[in-house]
């Protein structure tokens, strides 16, 4: 219903593709220390007053970020190696009390079976990623390169779903998973119930299409003259060239599948299939506090490590997409 009133968010939002596209990346960005000026000019930066203020603000903001963003996570680590008694009575007791219960992690692993839940999460994430990549690349290829006569209609239909709040489809999607109309397939309590709906991301399809749009058409022409059919072009030209955008799509899918809670809660009722997000709130009340904290800590190690390893890709992807994926 909003399609007519608004066409702006798409160029805004799909700029990820532009930013990641090989031709769009200016080589001069690689040069070190070639900063573009902001509101503060180089001349300002030489003035002592500005320098002092800038320094003070930098320190304050950094301290604030450390306390607010990193603080809770550091505290979580501290709590996960403490006794429940200490967490409850004196949450700020530092490690001076001599307690350092590494066995909490072992207990979380064996008693709460955090390992099994992490494995389930891995299944959810990998399957969602594969399903999304398959849908986005083939769909993007049709919309951007093959361009059949009905392509405009298809791309409009994909685009339209961006403007319809997700909540409309929650209940019907659940019923679809219970029994898929026409086929009679029952996906409930199988990983397909998470994988397939996760692949229906209009935003990611459009990002990939945007990226494919920027591949020079001469390449296809040359391949066609050499006798390569559309399938060949897809596998030997389009896919290899689009590695950067496939990386962004994978990261975004992995993170959103890892964070997802409501949907896997609904469609994976058996405990032995549930990912860690769904399992944690259920077991939280039944285990000692320190084991709970250790479990929480084990649940964030992998995403945090991935983030620290692939900071650049994460931040680039987030810079243009977080808005839609939440």
């Amino acid at each position: 219903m909003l399609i007519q009133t608004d066409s702006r968010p798409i160029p805004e939002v799909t700029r990820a593709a532009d930013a990641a596209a090989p031709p769009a990346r200016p080589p001069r960005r690689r040069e070190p220390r070639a900063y573009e000026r902001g509101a503060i000019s180089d001349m300002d930066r030489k003035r002592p007053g500005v320098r002092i203020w800038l320094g003070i603000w930098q320190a304050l903001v950094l301290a604030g970020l450390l306390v607010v963003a990193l603080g809770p996570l550091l505290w979580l680590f501290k709590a996960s190696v403490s006794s429940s008694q200490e967490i409850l009575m004196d949450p700020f007791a530092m490690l001076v009390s001599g307690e350092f219960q590494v066995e909490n992690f072992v207990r979380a692993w064996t008693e709460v079976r955090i390992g099994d839940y992490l494995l389930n999460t891995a299944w959810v994430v990998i399957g969602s990623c594969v399903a999304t990549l398959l849908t986005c690349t083939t769909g993007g290829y049709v919309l951007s390169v093959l361009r059949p006569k009905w392509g405009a209609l298809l791309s409009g239909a994909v685009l339209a779903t961006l403007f319809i709040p997700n909540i409309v489809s929650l209940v019907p999607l659940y019923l679809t998973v219970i029994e898929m109309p026409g086929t009679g397939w029952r996906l409930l309590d199988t990983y397909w119930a998470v994988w397939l709906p996760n692949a229906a991301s209009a935003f990611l399809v459009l990002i990939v299409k945007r990226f494919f749009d920027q591949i020079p058409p001469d390449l296809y022409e040359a391949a066609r003259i050499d006798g390569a059919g559309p399938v060949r072009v897809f596998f030997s030209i389009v896919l290899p060239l689009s590695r950067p955008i496939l990386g962004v799509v994978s990261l975004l899918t992995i993170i959103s599948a890892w964070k997802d809670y409501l949907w896997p809660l609904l469609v994976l009722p058996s405990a032995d299939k549930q990912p860690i997000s769904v399992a944690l709130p259920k077991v939280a009340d039944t285990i000692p506090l320190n084991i709970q904290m250790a479990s929480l800590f084990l649940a964030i190690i992998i995403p945090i490590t991935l983030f620290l390893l692939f900071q650049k890709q994460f931040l680039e992807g987030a810079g243009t997409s977080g808005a839609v994926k939440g």
Partner: protein
Amino acid sequence: MTAEASATSISRTRRRSFRSWVTSGGVTKIAFALPLLFIFGYFSWGPIVDGIVMSVQNTNLVDDPEFVGWSNFEYVLTDPLLPKAAANTLYYAFLALVFGFPVPLLLATFMAELRGTRRLYSVLAYLPVIVPPVVAVLLWKFFYSPEPTGLFNTVLGWIGAGPFAWLNSADIVMPAIVLESTWAYAGSTVIIYLAALTAVQRDLYEAAELDGAGIIRRTWHITLPQIRGVLLIMLLLQVINTMQVFTEPFIFTGGGPNNASTTLLLMIYNYAFIDGDFGAATALSVLLAAFLGLLSAGYFVATRRLN
């Protein structure tokens, strides 16, 4: 689905060229479109249409659906909990704007001036976004412990305030939940603004500087107007997202105390998955979506005039 249908109708109207359609790669095009058609047909377009249809039906898992007119909507609109849940949802969205709009903007405009250390600040700001919401909520649930030895109560105790009941207090529960959500999501807004700020035209700064405008005035008159488009869209998207909030109130309080944190999505969840009333759940979903649609349309008309 529709695309497939139109493709066959094209081939039917030009039967003579069907052969050439096949040899020119028509089948390949359809084959490449199949995953998209299958996934979107079953898991996006289908459910959207179903959602609207189901709102005027009585659906259960045993009998065939039966048309019931507006009765689902009547049922939902006369539910005594609805005004409370709607007010809570609006209150949540409002608080999320108050907490979550200025801070990322200030942080991003500041970070845009950093040289060399920008990555460090970005990583720190984005860190909470990587934490799965469930983990963040469970952790904060402990922070909000109402005991005097609870983490926040201890901190506030240092300056002589509290102890507060936090999630057990009908007055504080919503701000407390919003505070956690702001912590969890603000980082992604910061990064989006930062990306927009790198596209700001630099030469205007030079001109303003020559005219004697200070750093603050340059930011206010040059930086902000140039990222206004992104700001306006983010504002709307934030309202749309926060009005569909579920995980936080669901795990923090389950809607309590005394329904003080029951949101519309919690009501939809309860209708559908506790009461098994799919008609009422879809009716409320459609109402919420229609409201958000009207809100966005109005917003775009208003801001377009503004521009």
